[in-house]
């Protein structure tokens, strides 16, 4: 167990350095003027200003010097003021959004987290339930339907599914609008009387006792949640089904049946807990995947999270911003993958023993 966790922990610095190098490498495709957005707000106006900026921030120095400066920032010797430095959380300045990238992330990330948290339960619970049903009724009607559903599900691109949902539930039925909040709710939220305790809108609205705003937020999140769930259900279904089938063939299940236990207990009390192990890992990774994979869903539903901001910046070729998002995402994913792996070792004894 200790060796497993140590080995897993040793991988973290490797991944961190690797990801920073990868992103720094992509930065090198930019001209020094574009890269200056890492340190200053405005585009330098004339040639002399350009040269001054390049010199001041060492944008013409050898790569390893630049990499170091990119990591720790450039300190002004007279004022002692530091600019840039991703290790200090300064990802540069977004010239398209006219604010520091770090602020942009800080504003947008709670929305993404909110969406992800609400999507986790339907994704995991429904996906696993479908898989168990398909396995229990192997080759029956439910199984065949689940199989067709999973093939159709994996074939549906997120954005096609999302657009179709918008067509049906928004344009035709006016049930679930895109965006984050209705105008009236937005005015309430932006007012001084509304306290932002957690920054997560659904929780804040409950804490403020505004149930109407909570419902409005959920109404806007319904279609993104459905889209995120739909594409994950297919994967969950497949994994749970095959692991459940395998477990149902084991001898201890036969023993349970031979004892005369009701079929319901055999399936849900004896077989399911053991069949859940692969699904649990997948659940861990899919939470992580949801966080990173919301780019398209958020764009389709114009939901103001980090995914939408990243896609917008990319479409306008605001590269410093996009790379800031990538770094942030990379850090989050590395840490949460680590957590999932370690938790997994606790859940499944086979991992820590091998």
């Amino acid at each position, binding site marked *: 167990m200790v060796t497993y966790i140590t080995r897993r922990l040793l*991988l973290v610095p*490797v*991944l961190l350095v*690797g*990801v920073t*190098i*990868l992103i720094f490498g*992509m*930065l090198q*495709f*930019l001209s020094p003027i574009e890269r200056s957005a890492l340190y200053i707000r405005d585009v330098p106006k004339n040639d002399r200003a350009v040269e001054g900026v390049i010199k001041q921030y060492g944008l013409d120095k050898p790569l390893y010097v630049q990499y170091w400066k990119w990591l720790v920032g450039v300190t002004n010797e007279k004022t002692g003021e530091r600019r840039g430095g991703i290790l200090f959380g300064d990802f540069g300045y977004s010239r398209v959004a006219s604010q520091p990238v770090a602020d942009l992330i800080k504003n947008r990330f709670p929305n993404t987290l909110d969406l992800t948290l609400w999507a986790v339960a339907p994704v995991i619970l429904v996906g696993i339930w479908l898989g168990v049903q398909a396995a229990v009724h192997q080759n029956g009607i439910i199984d065949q339907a689940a199989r067709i559903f999973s*093939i*159709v599900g*994996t*074939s*549906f*691109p*997120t*954005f*096609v599914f999302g*657009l*179709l949902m*918008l*067509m049906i539930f*928004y*344009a*035709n039925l006016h049930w679930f609008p*895109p965006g984050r909040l209705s105008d009236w709710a937005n005015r309430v939220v932006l007012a001084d009387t509304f306290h932002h305790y957690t920054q997560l809108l659904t929780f804040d609205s409950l804490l403020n006792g505004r149930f109407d705003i909570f419902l409005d937020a959920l109404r806007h999140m319904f279609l993104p949640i459905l889209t995120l769930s739909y594409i994950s259900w297919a994967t969950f279904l497949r994994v749970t089904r095959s692991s459940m089938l395998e477990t149902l063939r084991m001898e201890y299940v036969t023993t349970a049946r031979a004892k005369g236990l009701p079929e319901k207990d055999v399936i849900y009390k004896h077989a399911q807990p053991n069949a859940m192990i692969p699904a649990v890992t997948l659940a861990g990774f899919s939470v992580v*995947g949801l966080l*990173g*994979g919301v*780019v*398209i869903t958020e*764009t*389709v539903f*114009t939901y103001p999270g980090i*995914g939408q901001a*990243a*896609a917008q*910046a*990319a*479409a306008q*070729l605001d*590269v410093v911003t*996009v*790379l800031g*998002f*990538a770094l942030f*995402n*990379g850090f989050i*994913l*590395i840490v949460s*993958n680590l957590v999932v792996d370690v938790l997994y070792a606790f859940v499944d004894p086979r991992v820590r023993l091998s």
Partner: protein
Amino acid sequence: MAELTPTGDNTLLRETTALREIGWFERFLGPENYRILTGLLKTPASILGFILIGLFIIISLGAPLIIPPTTPNDPYKIPRDGFSPNPKPMGSEWKRNVPPLPFWYKPIMKSDKWVHILGTSTGQYDIFYGIIWGTRTAFRTGFIVVITTFLIGTIIGAVSAYYGGAVDNVIMRIVDVFLTLPFILAALILAAVITPRFGKSLIPAIIALVTFGWMGYSRIIRGDILSIKERDYVMAARVIGVKDNRILFRHIIPNAIFPTLVLASLAIGDVVLSFAALSFLGIGTEIGYADWGQVLSFARNWITSLNQYWYIIVWPGITLVLFVMGWNLVGDALRDVLDPRMRGKS
């Protein structure tokens, strides 16, 4: 000892030991690979998949016959019938930039005037044209990306597995780093970074999909090679002093490559899907290029009136779904065949 000569009825013997005919094709592929290939052609689902793929191949090859280009020098430019932002419904008359009439048009449509069969999108781009010629774009990008990722992935995975030790460790950590960022986000970023260099075209998206797409093949071929490496004939080759790269490329890779190859050939569906996602997000070809993702992205401006303009997402959407489904159906059958628990059951 008396010589044993078979006498009498041999039916039992013939039935118990496999005395079936082994054709040249099976001999050529080897028993395991032959099993994979025939397994793919067994279920109705995979046959439906092959039919769908076949249909799309026919459409892409016959594109100039189905709807001849208005500008033969640049057939991938979707002809525009005016500049109005409002989409026009299906069956409305085609006034400007009308393509030449194909052979099938008169007998089927009973008219010699082109209409917008599937309507037009924002900016009067004809949707039917976009779908038909977009099939070619899909196959082109699909093939280029799959072949390149396959080559890069196999070579890196093979080197990693063959040399083992520190080399293997370093390469596999690099693979881990590339896998850290979510695929579509990573591809989006790289494409955005290099777009100013190459201009708006297919190239940035292709490069991005290749850069972040090879790792899967490396991992699979690495596993297969690790087992083949221990076989006796590799040892024999080493004993007689064959050089490293000859052993690798002549003895190991040809024997380990088949599963990866089949997997790669079925990845086209996924690649086309990712490519469409990138162009949907606004990275990729210039506006008006015949490309499914691009045609779909036109719908983003009309979200509030999709009840009226439903055809601007439904037709290109169905096309993309059917294309991807074709490859997925075959891929699903492949997963069953490759599953080690299924081995020896066919």
